[in-house]
């Protein structure tokens, strides 16, 4: 077990004017740990994810990241160039809508290869080989490498977005409702894929979802949010099997049994 956290979150709050986005959130995330953030729409999940991933600046609080050189860096104090570099090398961000994370008018291969080029890879053959390797890992046929994601189904686009994010071997991946909008059989395939990749690559991940089954399958730990605050957190199966807070009990009891 690694002794030092990858991400240290200390008392992060975000206000939109006088409205609360999220408030007083603190936690540590360790390498290889998968954290699910659950809660209903408007509970502050996505705001929190945006604050953690530097897409939004928190109103107060500190988010620190353990850089590859062993130092912790305050993300808010990082320069724009450095932050961008971090986001396309050591981090991944998987959007709910693949169109937000992909370039829809360039080929699938280029979508994957682009991140490699961004970190200085220039050899066309190597880039193409890495791209085909990753397409294969996310179960997209090599014969589709030159097609644009516009011509892909929703499930394929989402898998392509995952390949694009993982090609640079990030240590931390943020996912915002990665299975939202996909039908259940496509969802199952994607979940299994993500589960396998997270496990094999030892990724740390923060997954925002409103789907407790997704949280159960993918995450080690869970945070339940309501009205911008974390109301309950712990081991995923503890929170789901023995929910303590009224709202968590309501969430768990609202799952439809098949």
């Amino acid at each position, binding site marked *: 077990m690694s002794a030092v956290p990858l991400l240290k979150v200390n008392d992060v709050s975000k206000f939109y004017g006088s409205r609360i986005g999220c408030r007083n959130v603190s936690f540590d995330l*360790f390498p290889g740990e998968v954290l699910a953030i659950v809660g209903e729409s408007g509970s502050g999940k996505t705001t929190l994810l945006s604050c953690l991933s530097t897409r939004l600046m928190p109103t107060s609080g500190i988010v620190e990241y353990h850089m590859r050189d062993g130092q912790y860096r305050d993300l808010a104090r990082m320069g724009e160039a450095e932050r961008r570099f971090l986001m396309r090398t050591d981090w991944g961000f998987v959007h709910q809508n693949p169109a937000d994370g992909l370039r829809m008018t360039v080929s699938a291969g280029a979508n994957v290869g682009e991140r490699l080029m961004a970190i200085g890879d220039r050899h066309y053959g190597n880039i193409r080989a890495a791209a085909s390797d990753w397409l294969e890992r996310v179960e997209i046929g090599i014969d589709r490498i030159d097609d644009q994601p516009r011509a892909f189904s929703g499930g394929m686009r989402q898998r392509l977005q995952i390949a694009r994010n993982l090609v640079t071997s990030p240590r931390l991946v943020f996912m915002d409702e990665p299975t939202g909008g996909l039908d259940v059989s496509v969802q199952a*395939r994607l979940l*299994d894929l993500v589960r396998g990749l997270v496990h094999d690559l030892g990724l740390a991940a923060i997954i925002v979802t409103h789907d407790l089954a997704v949280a159960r399958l993918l995450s080690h*730990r869970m945070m339940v949010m309501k009205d911008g605050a974390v109301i309950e957190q712990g081991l995923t199966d503890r929170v789901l099997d*023995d929910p303590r807070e009224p709202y968590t009990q309501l969430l768990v009891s609202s799952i439809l049994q098949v």
Partner: protein
Amino acid sequence: MATPLVVSEVAKSFTMHLRDGIRLPVVANVTFSVKAGECVVLGGPSGVGKSSILKMLYGNYGVDEGQILMEHDGKLVNLATAEPRTVLDVRRATLGYVSQFLRVVPRVSALDIVAEPLQARGVAIEDARARAAELLSKLNLPTALWSLPPATFSGGEQQRVNIARGFITDHKILLLDEPTASLDAKNRAVVVEMIAEKKAKGTALIGIFHDEEVRDAVADRILDVSAFSPGKAAA
């Protein structure tokens, strides 16, 4: 050798917020220990809290009071208060669990489900699969099923996958929640034999068995859980 599991004054209740906050006490003052190579069977009528105790020991039920001490990685861990990642590490290396029902993961084969706990401990996938195959054939699961995901298996078949998964590692503590409930006599006998092997290797076992024949065959001691009912503790 240190006692692998010591449970001390553990209490648990549920507060049902959706039903006007009604509080349901489950158990109180649960105190016992299990020695290496010993099989302790939790006894008592249905609803007395046997499964709840097992779930607290595994960490998927929270604990209101008391301590659950396990020796893990050369250190003493109190599972009642441990961090999530500590609980997961204890489960990976020290604490195994055979639940009543298999939680199936879409698209993962029976063989890989069984091999996974060994793989998580760093065993190469081929070796883990070979060991998984050994266990599945011992439990008479037809070879044709090994490469299939167990979602469509019968209850007894799923249960045997579950047992193989729980028994594949050499965890020092093993929790068994009715592992023989949906098995036929032949396979029950196999499980009884596997439990005896675990005992011989020094594993501490805590189980729930409703089948008297199995219970008598494996139990070194029966712990009457009704002694821990909250009413008695108050008296």
